[in-house]
């Protein structure tokens, strides 16, 4: 099932034109004092949010730009998020 994604350059397009780039986990962690475990979590672990998630997408069949957008994973629809709420998903909570 397809849906619409809004490319910041080309505008709203069919999701089939895009490639999924994973969850937005924020900036790459500082390598000083970075433990292998923390690095492994950053690279491999995902939140898998049932709800609104911030994600990376690439407009592969179009302008080729990478961008982040918000998607409601329960409805598989792009959703507009207020500017203040934009940003990467919160870091994983450690047990």
């Amino acid at each position, binding site marked *: 099932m397809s849906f619409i994604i809004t490319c910041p*350059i*080309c505008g709203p397009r*069919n999701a089939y*034109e895009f490639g999924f780039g994973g969850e937005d986990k924020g900036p790459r962690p500082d390598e000083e004092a970075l433990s292998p475990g923390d690095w492994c979590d950053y690279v491999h672990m995902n939140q898998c949010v049932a709800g609104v998630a911030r994600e990376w997408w690439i407009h592969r069949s*179009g302008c080729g730009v990478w961008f982040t957008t918000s998607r409601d994973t329960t409805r598989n629809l792009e959703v507009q998020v207020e500017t203040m709420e934009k940003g990467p998903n919160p870091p994983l909570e450690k047990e």
Partner: protein
Amino acid sequence: MKKEIIRRSPVAFNMRPVKEERRGHWVVALEYENEGDGPHLVDLSHCIRWDLQDSDPNGDRGKWKPLGIPVPEQPGGCIIKNGVMINRMNNTQAAIWHLSGEEAEMPPETAYTDVTDATAFLALTGEKTFAIAEKLTALDLSDLDGTPPFLIQGPFVHVPCQIVVMANGAEQPGILLTCSRGYAHDMVAAILEAGKAFNLRPAGEAAFKRWLEQLK
């Protein structure tokens, strides 16, 4: 013995041109039989095309001026000057197409790459251009809000293409499109099939130049 270099277009129509000429290492089709008044499909793959990539093509206040022409500031923007078109693809990349078909020497900076042999370059011109395109893409090329020329990037015949809408008026609309070289054969077959009902014919470079001239 020195071997002659021959550059071949990836596009082949199912007929021989009645007029052709050698230009550089290319054989350029100038005219085909029974071209009619259009719509026309023209192979422009011999036209030199460069890619310009930089972290900011408008950086240093106009650092990049290929052949003295400034790169459009916004993605989607196009400029045509002296037979050269520059279209801005995204924040870091612009394409430079030599519509005149003449040879040109690439600027020495490493930001430029000659991509002439990497892509197929086609022109679809004439009254029924958008009726044909409508059968091949979901993109709205006849977007009347846009002022031609403008660039749209997206699938055409399911192939990622750079499409420049040159004119979207009712009389002589037309588009230029490039796609990866390997798709050329099937791209041409699909366009000609879609254009059958509109009497779409292959045409030579001369027909394209006449059409380009009347746009001015």
